[in-house]
């Protein structure tokens, strides 16, 4: 039975791609790719591919770390706005509004140039253990991207926390669960499942924000492509390859998240 449906699925998928106009479009796309491969200059690739791989690794590393830290920060932000006392909810709301109301590039430059120019004025900071880190660019990049992700995701989590049916929480309380246990076993998991579909979009958006860190001299893949463009005076080749790399990473991210979403056992409604 399952084998039969699988065969039908494969056949349906194949016929989806084998419509006449699609075949023509695919051929045109292949022709374009071949033109790009043969008539554009790619001789710089062997010299830069190691640097490129390192750049991709840095971009992914920043993406994963900032998404994880940002989500950890977004949970209390969302919780505060959904059901916290006002002295906690109002600052959370203000934080989310400010982060969502100003460009990320400005936040990044504010932290790097603004705070970065402030720190050296204080001798005790220069003598502390933090100074070797504060002199580099990547901590500012991580902090700015984390705060940005937390601001956007905090708003999503607020909606998710508020959307958990009241009856669920009341039932948990009727069972005599402690407040923390209600949060851990009932409220957070259900809110997380609700937020998961938007989490995909937010993560892709975050990936698309990572090239901004190149403007504060973190060498990610975008910075590598800028260096190639400066060194070789080529305009299009590095940018096209860069676009292709980002598209591939986006595709992989969407695939991973759809796998995770498919594993959620029940529909929450």
């Amino acid at each position: 039975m399952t084998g039969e449906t699988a065969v039908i699925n494969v056949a349906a998928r194949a016929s989806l791609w084998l419509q006449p106009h699609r075949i023509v479009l695919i051929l045109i796309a292949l022709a374009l790719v071949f033109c790009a491969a043969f008539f554009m200059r790619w001789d710089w690739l062997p010299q830069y591919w190691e640097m490129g791989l390192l750049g991709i690794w840095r971009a992914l590393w920043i993406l994963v770390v900032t998404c994880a830290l940002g989500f950890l920060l977004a949970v209390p932000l969302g919780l505060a706005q959904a059901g916290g006392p006002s002295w906690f909810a109002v600052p959370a709301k203000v934080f989310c509004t400010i982060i969502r109301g100003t460009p990320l590039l400005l936040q990044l430059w504010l932290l790097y140039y603004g705070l970065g120019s402030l720190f050296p004025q204080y001798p005790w900071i220069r003598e502390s253990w933090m100074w070797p880190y504060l002199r580099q660019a990547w901590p500012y990049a991580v902090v700015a991207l984390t705060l940005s992700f937390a601001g956007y995701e905090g708003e999503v989590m607020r909606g998710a926390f508020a959307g958990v049916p009241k009856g669920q929480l009341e039932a948990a309380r009727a069972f005599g669960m402690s407040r923390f246990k209600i949060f851990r076993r009932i409220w957070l998991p259900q809110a997380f499942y609700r937020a998961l579909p938007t989490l995909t979009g937010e993560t892709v958006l975050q990936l698309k924000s990572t090239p901004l860190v190149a403007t504060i001299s973190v060498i990610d893949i975008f910075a590598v492509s800028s260096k190639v463009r400066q060194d070789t005076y080529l305009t299009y080749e590095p940018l096209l390859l860069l676009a292709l790399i980002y598209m591939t990473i986006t595709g992989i991210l969407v695939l991973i998240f759809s796998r995770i979403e498919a594993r959620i056992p029940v529909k929450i409604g």
Partner: protein
Amino acid sequence: MAPGWGGTLLVGFLHSIEIAIGATCLGLLIGTGGACGKLYGGPVARDLLAIYTTVVRAVPELVLILLLYYAGTDLINQVLAAMGYQRIDISGLAAGIFVLGVVQGAYSTEVIRGAILSIPQGQIEAARAYGMPPGLMLRRITLPAMLPFAIPGLANLWLIATKDTALLAVVGFFELTLATRQAAGVTKAYLLFFVAAGVLYLALTLFSNLIIGRVEAWSRRGMPSVKEAR
């Protein structure tokens, strides 16, 4: 603070707003056309539009801005050269509007497509039954009826457009973020200027939210109020 830098910031702010408005208008045009093409177009148009929206939404805006900026100016100059005219310098304003407009177009295509799909089918069928030509139907039925569904998404896009103008600073267009960086670099008062620019952006966002609320209420006039799904 040296006198005059506040004025510089305001000029940059005006440029940002100009670009955001231009890009949103261009994006709306592309989006309306793209949504109609995706819904009612032939198979080739549909596939091409699907590629356009997917690619634009999968590649970082910064990369797209660089690509479109160089490709667009190159293309125009080559066309001009082929027609025997002299090369021209494309103004930063036009290039910025074009680049952000193409990006916005992909997102608004999806928003408007979704909005058109959520119009009750009977309204469009009734319009067809009256024998309305497609253009008139678009103007009188489809666009007004989809507006309440589209406005939240489009408002979001407008807010994104205002913030995406900051990315043009990377290609050297003089807007608020670049103006701020220049002012801060000269005066060394980094924190002051960056916070000031942040306040300007935030004011624009909050003001927009105010207007958007009014527009949304207006577009929903005559509709039964739907309680927020909780």
